[in-house]
């Protein structure tokens, strides 16, 4: 079997699975449950669930219609509690981007130093071992107390959660550059700085990029939780706000978009990783 036919068949199976999922979802949410007689006022309070036996869970058609509505107006702004999904995602991506970029700027040079120096590597290891397993959200109160700005606190949380995989992968990548490549540079009397940029960096790049890819995934996981805590703007806040509005449709749409954006971020990093990976 050729790879194209395998791909084609896999694609077909994916479509069938999606259709089956949507179909089951549709059937499951459409079916009317038993309705009980009740006073009209109470019925009004309870909504369609109680009066017409309609499921509280929106069906795929409801979600689709709502999604279309959002996609047509992604950037509207009707005040603090009613902003377009594009704006909310934009806030989240900007926070992740800033925290992540700061982490890159710290983790990669620091990882380089640690990886190239066995002394620093040993000296800093206990700190890294203790700091690494701390849930990024545990930093939140401390960040809010010291920084006193919820938005910057969220960025700090992203920074602190994305720094570890990058740092550890950079250290590992730098420390495990093939000895022969280092020896090539040594026999050519290449200086330390030039060696770092012409041999160690390209050799460690795939490992570093893998760390960056893990980090962006974690950062995107954490931003939703962080925004639920700090509130105001962002896709995490949107999810929480729509839950308070009891708009399950919007929650589902947000979940879907969080997944899509996360996938895109991952794909971008995966592409960069491929760009710096050269088979031997």
């Amino acid at each position, binding site marked *: 079997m050729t790879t194209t036919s395998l791909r084609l068949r896999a694609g077909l199976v994916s479509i069938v699975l999606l259709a089956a999922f949507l179909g089951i979802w549709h059937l499951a949410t459409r079916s009317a449950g038993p309705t009980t007689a009740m006073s009209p006022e109470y019925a009004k309070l309870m909504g369609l669930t109680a009066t017409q036996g309609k499921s509280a869970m929106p069906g795929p058609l409801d979600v689709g219609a709502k999604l279309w509505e959002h996609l047509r107006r992604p950037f509207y702004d009707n005040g603090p509690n009613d902003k377009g999904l594009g704006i909310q995602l934009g806030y989240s991506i900007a926070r992740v981007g800033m925290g992540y970029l700061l982490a890159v700027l710290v983790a990669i040079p620091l990882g380089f130093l640690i990886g190239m120096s066995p002394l620093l590597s040993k000296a800093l290891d206990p700190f890294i071992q203790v700091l690494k397993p701390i849930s990024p959200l545990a930093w939140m109160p401390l960040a809010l107390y010291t920084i006193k700005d919820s938005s910057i606190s969220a960025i700090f949380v992203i920074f602190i959660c994305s720094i570890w995989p990058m740092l550890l992968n950079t250290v590992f990548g730098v420390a495990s550059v093939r000895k022969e490549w280092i*020896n*090539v540079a040594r*026999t050519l*009397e290449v200086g330390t700085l030039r060696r770092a940029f012409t041999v160690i960096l390209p050799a460690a790049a795939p490992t570093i990029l893998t760390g960056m890819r893990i980090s962006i995934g974690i950062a995107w996981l954490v931003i939703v939780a962080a925004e639920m805590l700090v509130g105001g703007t962002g896709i995490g806040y949107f999810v929480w706000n729509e839950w308070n509005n009891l708009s399950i449709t919007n929650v589902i749409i947000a979940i879907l978009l969080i997944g899509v954006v996360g996938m895109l971020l991952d794909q971008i990093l995966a592409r960069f990783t491929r760009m*710096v990976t*050269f088979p031997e």
Partner: protein
Amino acid sequence: MTDKFISIEGISKRYPGASGATTTVFENLWLSMARGEFCCVIGHSGCGKTTVLNILAGLDAPSEGVVIVDGQAISGTSLDRAVIFQSHALLPWRTVLGNVAYAVSSKWRKWDRAKVKAHAQTFIDLVGLTGSEHKRPSELSGGMKQRVGIARALSITPKMMLMDEPFSALDALTRGTLQDEVRRICLETGQTAFMITHDVDEAIYLADKIFLMTNGPGAVLAEVVENPLPRDRGRTDLHRHPLYYALRNHIIDFLVTRSKTFVAETPDHDPRSVPVIHIGKPGLTIASSGDEPRQAWIPGTNPGLSA
């Protein structure tokens, strides 16, 4: 031999072993090479051949002793001593041209791009890789990769070449072609070469002198065998030379039996004057006396007559 271009003087290498003991890979090793000479080292795995080469390259430091190159004790690596690595050690993110140019621009840091490229190209042409300049190492066969390694080493116009089993990973045909080329290039450019090999025929074809090392740990340089074959030897009719089998048998006997027993059987072995073995009739070579190494004579035998 008065011209000692390279002189290894009493080097030893020890590693801290288990429970405080030290492992001595070799000790009090002396050897010298003349300018333009091609020397091969033969010995079993683990006897310290790579260690000697790394010390010569400056990649490793001896526990004791010094290495003198061109009248100067070495400390660390030098662009004068190029290394051809066993596993070619090409940088996979650079093209063929990029790999050679990296060496060129490391030696001549002020050269502009065009000059570096032109110089690198000369050496790529020299090893017969014209047309593959823009390929990455992963697109090359084993033989081509090793050619790039050779071009990279030669491109910095070193005073000597150090090769650690450069062809051992190649098929016989490619190995033969590359041996021809290395021999041609070394003769043309007057390179001094130090090569580790496992292949007796490779040593006979390439070397002027063959160093035989006993088994490690505690390896010693047992003998220096002078190659009796003429300098303009051809790879294909090597075996027709009257002294070829005598030479080959001598080396193989050493590898098979004497490399194990040499140290025990030769208690008076003086590492400072290792016997120089001349294969052939004693009368054909003028023996010298004084502080020159002891001479030994192995009669040339006719392979048709010997068992």
